[in-house]
């Protein structure tokens, strides 16, 4: 094994970014409709380096990676069959509910009463909000990609602070791969279509952040801030220049990320202060 491939920075940023960038450029030339496929193609090699190929033990992280593959296939089928509108959204909603239940299952098995309703209810509302809000809107492709990229990057930071380097690194790789495609789409003169791959990206990023809350120690309040990111892309900003619109949206989205990071950091510092020492590492 080449040792530099073990470097967390290579795995969670450089490798997925460069792979997605190159593949998005190639797909734009030959299969423009499938340009968004560069996101999973850039992400998964990095994910395999981080989490391995084995499925045993079947942890929530491995479930999320498997769900991402299923979501890519589903998205391809939806696009191929031109499934849009209510039937498409209904199928997406059902898929999100099933995926969320599956990831939360080990916790739900040991929880009952109000605690169970609270975890299940908030988890489902969070996931449906994230995925359907982006999918349902008629937004420019760069805006959707920016949304997914900033959201995944935000999850990467808060998950790492919230106690899981693995979940943070995986989200980082997702953000980097989405960022690579975003760059190609932004500088491309042709209209692009990466729409079909927004579902797997938002599904995986959402589930990774949910796992950071229920299986690590990220506070729920952090996710509330991240939920504001899809709303930013719906703001009626009318600028002639796309780059200006993206810049304003990026700044607003970063404010939501900053709020989430602050909450996660504050919570984490309080844990450390319980011991009057924050020099854990």
């Amino acid at each position: 094994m080449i040792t530099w491939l073990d470097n967390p920075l290579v795995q969670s940023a450089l490798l997925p970014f460069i792979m997605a960038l190159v593949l998005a450029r190639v797909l734009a030339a030959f299969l423009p409709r499938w340009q968004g496929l560069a996101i999973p193609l850039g992400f998964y090699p990095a994910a395999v380096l981080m989490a391995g190929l084995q499925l045993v033990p079947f942890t929530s992280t491995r479930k999320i990676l498997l769900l991402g593959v299923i979501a890519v296939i589903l998205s391809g089928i939806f696009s191929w069959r031109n499934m849009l509108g209510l039937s498409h959204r209904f199928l997406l909603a059902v898929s999100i509910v099933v995926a969320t239940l599956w990831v939360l299952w080990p916790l739900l098995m040991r929880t009952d009463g109000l605690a169970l309703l609270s975890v299940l209810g908030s988890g489902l509302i969070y996931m449906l909000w994230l995925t359907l809000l982006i999918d349902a809107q008629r937004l420019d492709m760069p805006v959707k990609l920016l949304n997914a990229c900033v959201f995944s990057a935000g999850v990467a930071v808060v998950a790492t602070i919230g106690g899981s380097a693995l979940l943070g690194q995986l989200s980082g790789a997702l953000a980097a791969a989405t960022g690579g495609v975003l760059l190609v789409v932004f500088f491309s003169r042709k209209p692009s279509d990466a729409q079909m791959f927004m579902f797997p990206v938002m599904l995986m990023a959402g589930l990774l952040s949910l796992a950071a809350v229920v299986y690590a120690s990220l506070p729920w309040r952090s996710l509330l801030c991240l939920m504001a990111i899809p709303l930013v892309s719906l703001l009626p900003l009318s600028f002639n220049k796309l780059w200006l619109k993206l810049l304003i949206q990026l700044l607003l989205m970063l404010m939501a990320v900053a709020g989430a990071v602050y909450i996660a950091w504050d919570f984490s510092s309080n844990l450390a202060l319980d011991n009057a020492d924050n020099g854990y590492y």
Partner: protein
Amino acid sequence: MRNLMFFVILLLVGTAAQAAKESYTIDPYHTYPNFTINHLGFSTMHGRFDKTTGRLALDRAGMTGALDISIDATSVSTGMKKRDDHLRGPDFLNSGEFPTITYKAGRVKLNKDGTGQVNGQLTLAGVMRDVTLTVNAMHCATHPFDPSKKKFVCGFDASAVIKRSDFGIKYGLPAIGDEMQLSFEVEAVRD
């Protein structure tokens, strides 16, 4: 008549064998499985699990037995809450998904000097591996503080060196040590 005698002998042998095998319940207040691990090459960090339950079956005459220990993975304690939370998370023990660590051994072989060997399976973070514990010391006696003198206790110190990567726990490798010493200091009360 011969059949009846054969039956009586069988019954007596069976009862004697049953009497030889004693059943014990692990005392959670005097049993704290613990571990040590190298920290970045600087020092050795210690940690322990605060909640343990289990059973011990012992044939003191035959010097054999069986062991079944369940450890609450969420009870890990290193003296710092933030680090303990990290240890409970997906990077290490993943206690949200795998709340119990178990050690099940069907073959306990003891020597007269109190040492011995335990061959069993350790399940950690959802992965099961064969782990052989070395019994460093064992002592069985009536509890000295029990006024009725009926409480009979067996205790032992056993340990093994495991590789956490064998259990899929790879965070921080190789900076944070792969090999960790796992120690079981157990007291069990006869039922």
